[in-house]
């Protein structure tokens, strides 16, 4: 990959990667840092990465960096943020399917959330998700199944609550 192709990758994939990071870490600065780091690694290895595989490479690097960061910070701050927003939701009773879904998404275990985002945002296949996360395809399927069931139940419970 040459400089021009790298810059094309910036245009094509930076938004996708940022969205994925932001949804996972829920911190704009950290998400931006992770995107920067992923692209920096891509730049350093651009000679060894083909343009067609750049997206997968970026997500793999970004995912690993994100896991490292999450482990470092232990998500204390984010859990507080999440609880606040849920509280706000129950008090105001503002019914918005999208918001409900996002709140439910944040209740999911990290791995399930990541898989849901990879599937829905980026359209990754089971195989690709397995490669990215280091799980096998069976584990990917099970986690996705549990995540979907949980999200579905959350939506149903909100409907009945109203």
């Amino acid at each position, binding site marked *: 990959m*040459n*400089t*021009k192709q*790298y*810059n094309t990758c*910036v*245009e094509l994939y*930076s*938004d*996708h*990667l*940022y*969205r994925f990071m*932001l949804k996972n870490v829920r911190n704009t600065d950290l998400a*931006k840092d992770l*995107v*920067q780091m992923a*692209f920096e690694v891509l*730049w350093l290895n651009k000679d060894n990465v083909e343009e067609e595989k750049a997206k997968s490479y970026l997500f793999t690097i970004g995912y690993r960096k994100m896991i490292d960061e999450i482990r470092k910070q232990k998500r204390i701050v984010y859990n507080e943020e999440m609880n606040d927003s849920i509280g706000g939701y129950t008090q105001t009773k503002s019914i918005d*399917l*999208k918001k409900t*879904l*996002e709140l439910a*998404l944040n209740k999911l275990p990290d791995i399930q959330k990541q898989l*849901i*985002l990879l*599937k*829905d*945002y980026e359209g990754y*296949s*089971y195989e690709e998700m397995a490669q990215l996360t280091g799980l096998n395809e069976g584990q990917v*399927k099970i986690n*996705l*199944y549990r995540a*979907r069931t949980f*999200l*579905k139940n959350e*939506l*149903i419970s909100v409907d009945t609550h109203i």
Partner: protein
Amino acid sequence: MAMITIHNYETYLIDYLHGELAAERVDEMEFFLQENPAIAEEFQHLQQTILVPDTTIVFEDKKSLRKPAPSLIVRLKPYYSAAAIVIGVLCFIYFLLRKDSPSEPLASQTKTLLSTPSTVNNTQQKDPQQAPEKIVPHPSPALIKPLATAQKTANASIAKKNKQGSPATTNSALDIPKPEKQIYEPKQEQVVVKEMPLKKEEPIQLPIPQNNTQEEVQDAATLANNIAPSKQTIEFNTRKQPKLFKALAQLTRLSRKVKHTKEQLTEHEYIVMIGNTKLFHLNNN
């Protein structure tokens, strides 16, 4: 393969939701959902859990991620640049004046003279009697004397030939010495390239000679594939194929080099400087 039932449908349903269900199972699943409205409703709830990417979330600082194309600075030395500019201007003026000067016919005449051998050869083959008339140049005043001298010499040689019983004609006033036939006539063993009647999508078939290297054969085959869309069939004289193959291989290598160079050129941006003064800046992006 197990049927989709009320007891095992979950995994199939999730696969169906994610578009990962095997193609042969899709119809079965759709039929199953029709037969089981409760599960169809469950499927609708599951469909609602699919997230839609929020396109309003964008990474705004893309500029920080982009990398500048590597710059190549072409630094010209001031004295050399000035000298080059002066020489260029002088050359331009010289050619401009030369174009208007009466010496132009001389130049065109020289061209005519240079081009005559092939003309002579061709015309003489067709009609030897008309050939001298066709090649009569139009001499400029500057050439009258030298041409008159040449004419005398030519006439003398013709006279000599006539004395010896040569069949050469003498009706031309400016008969230029006839060039040697061996130089211009095509050799019998030369490579023959024929353009054959076109056939639909017929690939070019080049017989592979034994004494070429593998690389040369591959290059030639690549070239043949590249020119295939022109729908032309090329036949080569078998005696000269190795040379042709070498030429084709060399051509392919050259085209590769050109392609590679082009890629490199488009990747860089260029800054042309005279001394420390920036003259212009070319940016391919």
